[in-house]
């Protein structure tokens, strides 16, 4: 008789392989439950992708991904972090070139949804710094993610929400789409930023000072208006702290 370890490795190998004789009668019920269950988990995390390619195509992709990269932990909220990168190498992503970037946006949304809570920056702390604010380091909300794409992935995402109509999405853009995904309170926000504001926030998120970040923004956008953009970013509560080095 096989040992318990041999039993368990044998079932795992059979479930993740495509084909072969089942190790015991009815093992197929467990295989179907595992693969079907994980495809359902991925469909819940990537609903727009699911809608764009359809049920049959999505299930095929999801089950292929499960066999390529099965979960490494029981909480499944993070499962599928590697799905967008894997998807980029599949044939369907060559046919629909925006698909992998839409998937990256959905992975960012899921990250933001489950991220830890953090209190927003107190405006008084900013005022108290005075001119020293130029040298200060800024902390961004732990839920934040940055997405850049040559496609208008935010428009694609919004047009494929359950409550959206059937309107066609204009895929034309004048340059890259820069998005901030953040969940400062209960709701996940999806915010399109101008290139200068995006560069500023990326630099602040990397720990650079406001004066350096400002120069980065000006390098991309000569008309960059720091006060205007910073006011907008403060209003969406993407910052959680500001402190002198």
């Amino acid at each position: 008789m096989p040992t318990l370890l041999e039993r368990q490795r044998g079932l795992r190998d059979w479930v993740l392989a495509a084909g072969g004789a089942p190790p015991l009668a009815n093992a197929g019920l467990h295989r179907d439950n595992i693969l079907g269950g994980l495809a359902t988990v991925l469909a819940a995390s990537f609903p727009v992708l699911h809608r764009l390619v359809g049920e049959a195509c999505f299930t095929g992709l999801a089950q292929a991904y499960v066999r390529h990269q099965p979960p490494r932990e029981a909480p499944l909220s993070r499962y599928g972090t590697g799905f967008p990168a894997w998807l980029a190498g599949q044939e369907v992503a060559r046919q629909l070139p925006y698909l992998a970037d839409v998937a990256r946006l959905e992975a960012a949304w899921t990250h933001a949804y489950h991220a830890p809570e953090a209190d927003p920056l107190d405006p008084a702390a900013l005022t108290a710094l005075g001119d020293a604010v130029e040298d200060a380091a800024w902390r961004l909300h732990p839920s934040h993610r940055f997405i850049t794409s040559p496609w208008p992935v935010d428009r694609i995402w919004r047009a494929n929400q359950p409550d959206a109509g059937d309107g066609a999405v204009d895929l034309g853009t004048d340059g890259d789409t820069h998005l901030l995904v953040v969940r400062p309170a209960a709701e996940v926000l999806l915010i399109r930023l101008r290139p200068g504001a995006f560069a500023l926030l990326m630099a602040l998120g990397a720990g650079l000072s406001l004066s350096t970040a400002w120069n980065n923004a000006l390098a991309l956008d000569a008309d960059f208006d720091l006060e205007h953009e910073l006011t907008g970013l403060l209003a969406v509560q993407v910052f959680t702290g500001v402190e002198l080095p």
Partner: protein
Amino acid sequence: MGITGIGLKARHTAELLAGRPGLRFLEVHAENYMGAAMGSGGPAHRWLTALRALYPLSIHGVGLSLGGAEPLDTDHLADLAALVERYQPEWVSEHLAWCRIDGTYLNDLLPIPYTTASLSLVADHIDQTQTALRRRILVENPSSYMAFPESDWPEAAFLAELARRTGCGILLDVNNIHVSAHNVGLDAGAYLAALPANAVEEIHVAGHEPVTHEGRAVLLDTHGAPVTAAVWDLYRQALTRFGPVPTLVERDANIPPLAELLAEAATADGIAVTLFGGEVPDAHAA
């Protein structure tokens, strides 16, 4: 107050908070609130915190792999301990099953052969869990489709011995007994009689569906349909033997409107009232 609780589903959250129906407890799957870098915040935790202020909680793990041949995942166990510390549930439960091997997680509750060697292994894992959580846990009987030729313990005797060795309680899923009885040939009545009368601290009832797999008729434990008459009969037998044990109406697929779940909870409470007297709360009479 009756003896029945329901599983917490996101779509019912607002209605539960607004209507506060009379329920003995709410049950959640531990893993939906866990995860190393994520999982500590967000809407799910906000809702659970609000509901925890209104109802006792049962935290039901599906991912610890008590029956796994490899050592328990100590990161998972520490995460579970933190969740239990945060929400202070009335019960913590897990399954007599495995789901993890060589670090790969298979999202199913996979059965183990019942041997003297597997008994020692599972007992050690339960001891380790109870030590880490600093409390007793309840262990649930699985639904079985596969029969292992090397099994030489009846499942009920195996569970009873686990409870005796580790001091754990038993979460008795009467739907799983019914499903397993059909699929692998258990005697449901003998099963109930073989369990110690004082070890059963929670009961699950759920729906199943008949399917045909490779030419065989199988009962599939889907948690996706109403509880059947046969399972309510077995539930009545279980209450008769074990007393008015807190009971979960379990539904994880085809989630119906809240009123339908509350009506099923009222059915369970009604059976308890018939057997033991008392009143069913009005809130259940949906």
